[in-house]
């Protein structure tokens, strides 16, 4: 236990400042008023859905939880069920084998809800495109509020997308 506590003290706090919002990532007109978005901004629950990705984007979503980005310190956390979520973070081209699961997850998420498409595949279909096995971009299946390109987008870009979706409210965030 001594060694563990010593390691924590020696590490200190490595968390970095959160990025600013980027309105150019927005795909559709902002749908909710300040009141709702302010509430999201203080406690946002996200459900991640891999709709067919190569798992590259998942690596960066995992990295969002590391102490450099300290997502939970911003009041943002990943939840186990879409029924507890305010936002869906969707990766991958939507494989045809995942189409039904993605739709069901979207329907199970209570209104008001936000959708982020993550990565080149989620934004455009990427290198996999549309085919007998793939529907391509996420917006082909469910409405997307904000799209974050990149292969994969680094954690700070994903975080920027999340903050943009909840309305560009910098206040109250670290």
């Amino acid at each position, binding site marked *: 236990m001594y*060694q*563990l506590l010593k*390691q*924590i003290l020696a*590490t200190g706090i*490595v968390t970095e400042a959160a990025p600013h919002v980027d309105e150019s990532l927005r795909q559709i007109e902002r749908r909710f008023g300040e009141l709702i978005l302010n509430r999201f901004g203080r406690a946002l629950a996200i459900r*991640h*859905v*891999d*709709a*067919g*990705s*190569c*798992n*590259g*984007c*998942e*690596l*960066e*979503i*995992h*990295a969002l*939880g*590391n*102490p*450099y980005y300290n997502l939970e310190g911003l009041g943002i956390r*990943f939840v*186990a*069920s*879409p029924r507890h979520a305010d936002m869906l973070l969707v990766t*991958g*081209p939507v*494989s*045809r*084998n*995942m*189409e*039904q*699961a993605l739709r069901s*997850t979207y329907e199970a998420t209570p209104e008001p809800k936000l959708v982020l498409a993550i990565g080149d595949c989620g934004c455009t279909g990427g*290198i*996999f*495109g*549309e*085919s*007998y*096995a*793939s529907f391509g971009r996420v917006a082909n299946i469910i409405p997307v509020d904000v799209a974050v390109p990149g*292969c*994969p987008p*680094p954690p700070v870009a994903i975080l920027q997308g999340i903050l943009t979706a909840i309305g560009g409210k910098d206040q109250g965030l670290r």
Partner: protein
Amino acid sequence: MGNAIEDLGIDAAPLPGAMPAFHARIAVDELRDVCGKVRPQKARLVALWGSDETTRGAGYALHLALGLPCGLLWLTVALPRAQPHYPGIADLFPAAGRMQRAAYDLVGIEPQGNADRRKWLRHGSWPDGVFPLRKDFDGASRYPLAGDHYGFVRVEGDGVHEIPVGPVHAGTIEPGHFRFSIVGEKILRLEERLGYTHKGIEKRFESMTLDEGAKLAGRVSGDSTVAYAWAYSMAVEAATRTEPPQRALVLRGILLELERIANHLGDLGYLGNDVALSFGFYQFWRLKEDLLRAHAELFGHRYMMDAIVPGGMARDLSQEGCKRLLERLELIRDEAATLKSIYDEHAGAQDRFIMTGQVLPALAEELGLNGFAGRASGIRHDLRVDYPVPPWQWIEPRIASHTRGDVAARIAVRFDELAESIRLVRAFVRQLPPGDIRAPVAACDGGRTGIGWVEGWRGEVMVALDTADGNRIHRLHPHDPSWQNWPLVERAVHGNIVPDFPLINKSFNLSYSGQDL
């Protein structure tokens, strides 16, 4: 060394390329005989796939890649156009079961005998009787989504009930379905159903040039992008008789070991997290982030995607870069050693790790467990050690192994490999030869073959390539080690409690995308 193949009574020709490999055509009635002969010699089934040869005036073909002490033996079995049937081999090589089902779903070649013939990759996206990897199938075809009935095996008895999990999981992981049959908290049976991320990768390859395919190969399974890019490049270089420069080979070695270090760091963190030691997650992921940032700085990408290309490397490493990399790795090595002793002495964590999710060596051998998970269950195979071709022959990697086959053993092997990979990178950097990093790739006509075979962080990644005219791809099969290892997760959880499933699953950390294709 070649005697093992001669004893089989088949006519095998050596294949050009970096790894020792042989190719032979056998008749369909020789298939079981050959498999029966190699099985007692501890041959491993590396991959099984199908191809459509009708555009070449033939029928279809079944392909097997077998791992033998002398190298990889690629067997091609011609099948007639009218009834492309072959005797199943899943009784000899259990790992073949799912691969046979996938080969039927995609190419329409059918195993006979008592083979499992349930669909595997198809789900409801295209109808039975339509085969996407046939040459007359248009990759842009759309079929209305149909119902997706699948016959799970039911466990019956007093107090048995089922827990269906997925495809959308509680954590941030890839999609797949797990059907648990349990009594109380105890798992009686787990049945996996995968294929959800099938996105037509193999069909995509067939519309690409050899040059274009490199980028797609690096996205078969994102966490193994280096291993796939190398295996793909190795296959293309074999088919086009290209010799990558020595400097490129050493750089590839560095990248592959960095990928291994990054993945082991991440998983060691999650394994702490899964036993409520979130300290481990934060510490290991801080180290992983430091390494990813070094990758971005030195190779222009946090996961080093697209750095390895046919002919060599797209990115070089400067002397200054080498120095910074070694400094970073030294810090990681020291901190990881501290974290290892904290894990080792943490009674609560060890209590969860030890004897959880055990795969004994006999079962691992029978089912063909490979990679670091295999090495944790006494399967002493590592391509870097078994076939010490350049660049491995210049640095002599040491194999990590364990025999208990539980979560703790897989953790021990990961810690050992982490330290060894850091040693290997240091050795590579010290002897990085000067010179070019990329050789021109010669033009290539149809019918050339090449094998890529690389020990990725998870296990053996194989790419089998058969070219078409004009530098294009006739058929390319990328094979992930997860094909072999997924069935062992079903077995590892027997008798364990449901809450230990995430821990056991993470200790293997298998790829969905890599096997769904």
